[in-house]
């Protein structure tokens, strides 16, 4: 993995601001689900905050994002307003998708979030289509496509990356490698030594980076974005990271050796990034102010979600086709 210089102070503050919102949101979701205030299947993102925050800090709001069911971090980092996101998680009419998508299917075109899929690997071919549209429009946009290490074992990954490369599509394939596909370690499912190697085999510019290192991740992201905007084509970024709370909430991570989990928690990217800000002479008070602001956003959003109305049952007849279907 390449070592990189420290990113700008302002960039690191931006990444921290996004990542802290994600971390606090994840904690709050787990609390509320645990307390029975929300009845949803939840895929925790704690541990992967910095990967998406650094990636999204390197793109614009009108660039596209395609992500997956473990996507809260990507969606918040891309800028979806917390109130609408929380309301969608709660199935309320005020949610991004009027409560019809739910946590696994968040869409918010205003911030470029075009698809969240619950089918492993499926976003990859769709990201190509967004990239193709940008290439034909010459609008200069890039598409970020997020998925996990597990998705690289499905056919759509190989078909999709190959097509992106032959057409030089402006797509950044961000593999957030947390080493576990559901309950199985990558070494038991993956024939190649790395995901980067798979990207290289398909002809793509491919890099591996410590995704938990904000500066290194940002540098890799920025480079891939510039490469794509210049018309050179896609990049596969293999961002090494870890997830602390299982495949889905309730999963005890029993399949992860204790020592591995302990080491991963020692390498928790959040306190490291916070310390980096302090080292850069950003005051404790300034950091605390960012955290307090995020807490207030989450407090307001979670209340909004709980207090909002459910959609009307008749809503199932709307948006199936472009015209309302008969009852």
């Amino acid at each position, binding site marked *: 993995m390449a070592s990189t210089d420290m990113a700008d102070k302002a960039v690191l503050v931006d990444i921290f601001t996004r990542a802290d919102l994600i971390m606090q949101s994840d904690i709050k979701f787990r609390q509320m689900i645990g307390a029975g205030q929300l009845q949803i299947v939840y895929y925790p993102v704690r541990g992967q905050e910095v990967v998406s925050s650094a990636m999204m800090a390197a793109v614009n709001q009108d660039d*596209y994002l*395609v992500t997956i069911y473990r996507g809260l971090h990507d969606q918040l980092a891309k800028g979806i307003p917390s109130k609408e996101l929380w309301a969608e998680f709660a199935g309320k009419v005020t*949610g*991004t*998708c*009027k*409560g*019809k*998508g*739910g946590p696994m*299917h968040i*869409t*918010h*075109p205003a911030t470029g979030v*075009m*698809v969240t*899929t*619950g*089918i492993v690997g*499926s976003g*990859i*071919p*769709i*990201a*190509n*289509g*967004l*990239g*193709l*549209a940008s290439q*034909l429009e010459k609008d200069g946009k890039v*598409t970020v496509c997020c998925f996990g290490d597990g998705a690289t074992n499905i*056919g*759509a990954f190989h*078909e*999709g990356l*190959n*097509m992106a490369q*032959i*057409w030089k599509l402006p797509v950044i394939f961000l593999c957030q490698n947390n080493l576990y596909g559901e309950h199985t370690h990558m070494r038991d499912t993956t024939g190649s030594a790395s995901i980067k190697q798979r990207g290289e085999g398909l002809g793509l510019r491919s890099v591996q980076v410590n995704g938990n290192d904000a500066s290194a991740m940002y540098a890799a992201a920025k480079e891939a974005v510039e490469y794509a905007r210049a018309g050179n084509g896609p990049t596969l970024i293999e961002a090494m990271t870890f997830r602390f709370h299982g495949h889905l909430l309730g999963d005890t991570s029993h399949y992860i050796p204790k020592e591995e989990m302990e080491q991963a928690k020692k390498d928790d990217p959040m306190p490291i990034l916070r310390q980096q800000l302090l080292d850069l002479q950003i005051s404790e008070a300034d950091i605390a102010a960012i955290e307090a602001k995020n807490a207030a956003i989450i407090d307001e959003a979670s209340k909004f979600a709980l207090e909002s109305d459910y959609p009307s049952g008749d809503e199932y007849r*709307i*948006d*199936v*086709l*472009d015209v309302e*279907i008969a009852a």
Partner: protein
Amino acid sequence: MSDTAEKPKDIMFAQALNMAMNKAMADDPKVILLGEDIADKEGGGVFKVTAGLSGTFGTDRVRSTPISEQAIVGAAVGAALVGYKPVAEIMLMNFITVAMDQIVNHAAKLRFMSGGQTSVPLTIRTTTGAGTGLGGQHSDMLEAWLAHVPGLKVVAASNPQDAYGLLYSSIMDDNPVIFIENTPGYFVKGPAPTADHTVPLGKASIPREGTDITLIGYGSAISRCHAAADKLAEDGISCEIVDLRTIAPFDEETVLKSVAKTKAAVVVHEAVRSFGTGAEISSRIHEELFSELRAPVGRVGSGYAPVPFSPAIEKAWMFSQDDIEREVHKILG
């Protein structure tokens, strides 16, 4: 203009499809084509349906792809989400099985799951059909699978004029449409459409009026319905034919109106009879017109087996004009 220029000449089904895509691409720069071998360098499609289009509109808009059905449909879905009207060619309908995740989980559902924020105005052209010895993996009729998925429209034309109008309407429709072509039918001729000929989706036609029984079908069933109707007329039986044209959502109003008049019906399709679209259509007729029917609605379809290779078995397996006639006699006693 001379007199001869105004007479519609006969053209092949495949030419009508080519004309529809040509018009759609000329009318709307957002129409793009994706598929295996579809550009002229690769032959303009294995059945030449897209011949000449890459020359006219360029290979940016008419793109030959790798043999990657998931990637083809996925790319079409993604481009459709941001305003393009892609036409993805999945060479043969059996290959749609490889792309079913993109079709069923994404194309069909993204409008709904996004609460209407996005839509997928995508057309998937695909061809199939038995009778030419292509065997079990190149001839299946899978329309019932697709018609069962909320959010998809399913279309099948039976003649060049309808093919032209329906394909143009499919491309311009704001919903994902599966447009099913018939491989042996590509070379069947019929009157050419005029450039402004239109056929709306969701509207059946009545190509033959009659009084004794209604034959309901689409695509490859219609020519056999006509042949059977000619033969039955010799026995004094008057058949009305309803060509659904759009399988899903089907034109229930036209079907029910016809059957209310004839009081008898047979649904005909090439697909395997069991769990086919005929079951749904038949059931809807029974629900609405049970007390008026002279006999239960009949169904004609192919046998419960994969499409066989040997012509001797394929012929026995496949639905036929004889099957239609037999079913009509059975119903009318």
